């Protein structure tokens, strides 16, 4: 892998003495050049702290961060070839849109004509040509977001850091901006490091993502690796909807309370094991099936129907096929569990 950012053993401790909080705990990961990399996790998991370490706003207590082989220690933010799109956008309210975008170039003493050209190009890139003379307060949230993006990209940074950059937008705009961001990343060829708590954002945009939990990296992988093969209960639970099935491994099957589930061959006989199965991978049948259960609740969700079953299980059934039989509340049903849908978890309990 042609690494752009190498983070090794980074810890950040806030406060001191008894009140010390470990915001980051021995985090190590590598981000490739031109990659769209996402740090995903709930609030307080340390993802923003890690981003701020890369930007230079926080200083790691231990560990190092290297950018293209150069250690960033001791470099203040204004000497790092990275730029940030802030969560609140942090647009300068006293400057116009064009002045905001020109800010970084002026700091680097770029020639006036060159600045003008770049600002024009950036406005075009984020589809805001003609808005250069406005003040940020005169723009909508989505437009402000794009100005913040243009302001950061204008400096052609090696890495663009995005801190929950879409969370302030409404749903429709957010979905548009996802595509927009992805397009910009492809067009500019810049490494994007994106911080979010929104799993949909992470799955749809990232080349790879790191799921974080209380200051540590829980799992790193491509969206499909993370979604289809979560290694821990935490990751499986945080991303998407999941059924957890627990039981004892016997004869390459998992013996659970409601029946037998097929499992991969390499699990030790007689061990306790928990597996994750996505609700959309399960199939409901009237007779037979690997598991038997009873329908406790039916939730109509437009494109699909969610069946809640006894034993804390859920099954999603698409509504498109008229062929799908309808089941009634309280009906006893069977569940077919394909082997490919079964993901054994490392934390067995």
């Amino acid at each position, binding site marked *: 892998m042609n690494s752009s950012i190498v983070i090794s053993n980074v810890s950040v401790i806030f406060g001191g003495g008894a009140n010390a909080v470990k915001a980051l705990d021995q985090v190590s990961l590598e981000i490739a050049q031109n990659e769209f990399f996402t740090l995903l996790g709930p609030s307080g998991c340390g993802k923003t702290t890690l981003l701020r370490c890369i930007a*230079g*706003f*926080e200083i790691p207590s231990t560990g190092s961060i290297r950018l293209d082989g150069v250690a960033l220690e001791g470099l203040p933010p204004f000497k790092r070839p990275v730029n940030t799109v802030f969560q609140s956008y942090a647009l300068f309210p006293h400057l116009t849109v064009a002045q905001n975008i020109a800010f970084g170039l002026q700091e680097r003493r770029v020639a006036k004509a060159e600045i003008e050209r770049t600002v024009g190009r950036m406005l075009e890139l984020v589809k805001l040509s003609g808005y250069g003379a406005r003040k940020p307060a005169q723009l909508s949230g989505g437009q402000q977001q794009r100005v913040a993006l243009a302001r950061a990209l204008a400096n052609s940074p090696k890495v663009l850091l995005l801190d929950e950059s879409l969370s302030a937008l409404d749903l429709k705009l957010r979905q548009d901006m996802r595509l927009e961001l992805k397009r910009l990343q492809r067009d500019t060829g810049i490494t994007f490091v994106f911080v979010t708590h929104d799993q949909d954002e992470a799955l749809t945009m990232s080349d790879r993502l790191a799921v974080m939990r209380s200051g540590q990296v829980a799992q790193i992988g491509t969206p499909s690796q993370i979604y289809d093969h979560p290694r821990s209960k935490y990751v499986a639970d945080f991303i998407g909807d999941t059924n957890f099935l627990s039981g004892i491994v016997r004869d390459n099957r998992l013996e659970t309370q409601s029946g037998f589930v097929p499992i991969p061959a390499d699990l030790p006989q007689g061990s306790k094991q928990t597996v994750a199965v996505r609700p959309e991978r399960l199939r409901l049948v009237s007779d037979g099936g690997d598991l038997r259960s009873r329908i406790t609740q039916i939730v109509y969700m437009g494109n699909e129907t969610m069946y809640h079953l006894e034993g804390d299980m859920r099954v999603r059934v698409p509504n498109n096929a008229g062929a799908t039989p309808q089941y009634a509340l309280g009906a006893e049903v069977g569940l077919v569990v394909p082997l490919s849908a079964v993901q054994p978890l490392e934390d067995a309990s």
Partner: protein
Amino acid sequence: MTSSQNPLWRFPGLQAIIWFFFAFLYVPIFVLVALSFNKNDAATLWTGFTFDWYRVVLENDNIVRAAQNSLIVALSATAVSTVLATAAALGMAGRRFKGQNVFNALVGLPLLVPEIVTAVASLLFFLSLGIPLSLVTVIIAHIVFCTPFAYLPIRARLEGLDPRINEAAADLYSSPLRAFWRVTLPLLLPGILSGAMLAFIISLDDFVITFFVAGAGATTLPVYIFGMIRIGITPEVNAVSSLLLLLSIAVVTLSYFLGQRGAAHSS
């Protein structure tokens, strides 16, 4: 917000400036208070600790009378201006209406007009109307410039109150008057107290306006101190000045902590 661990936020030189800043603000005050306890009556040489000068001050009838006048003026001005300010703040709170800006401008007037101008205007006004200068004229002038100082904290406090609480009171069968008595007033009290204390300090400390509108026999403490300073520097002046200083500091501190408590309550 800002990470204090990061040297990024340390602007070079600020530390030195802040030390100089506080030294500059406080050294003269400490020197004054220290010298008021100095045995030596001549100069700044420290020759020993004594309370004598305070005894001298308290035995000086003129000073005691001036202090009494100061208290009479400050207490009456505080009482009247706080009532006026509370009423006005209640009238101004809540919705916007026509003419509000007229009152805003009026309240701002005593705050931005130089004291000497107010003093001259008041003096000329009383003289041309043939009103004899006395303690009464002093009190009237003090009420005027104390009102904005009392008004501002009360207004700020009202602004911070949730307008819904009155609706909640009404919902729970309180008439507007009862709601004011049981809900608004108790919540407003810290603001009123801190406004009253500011008015008290401002009145107690005022020199210029009092100097102009005080008639014979209406000398307040600052005016008397001014007279003493012009005659000569004595340890007695140090003592009486220190007393005035400490009184102001005590009231400010009290007002500050009351404000803190009020803020803690509302949040």
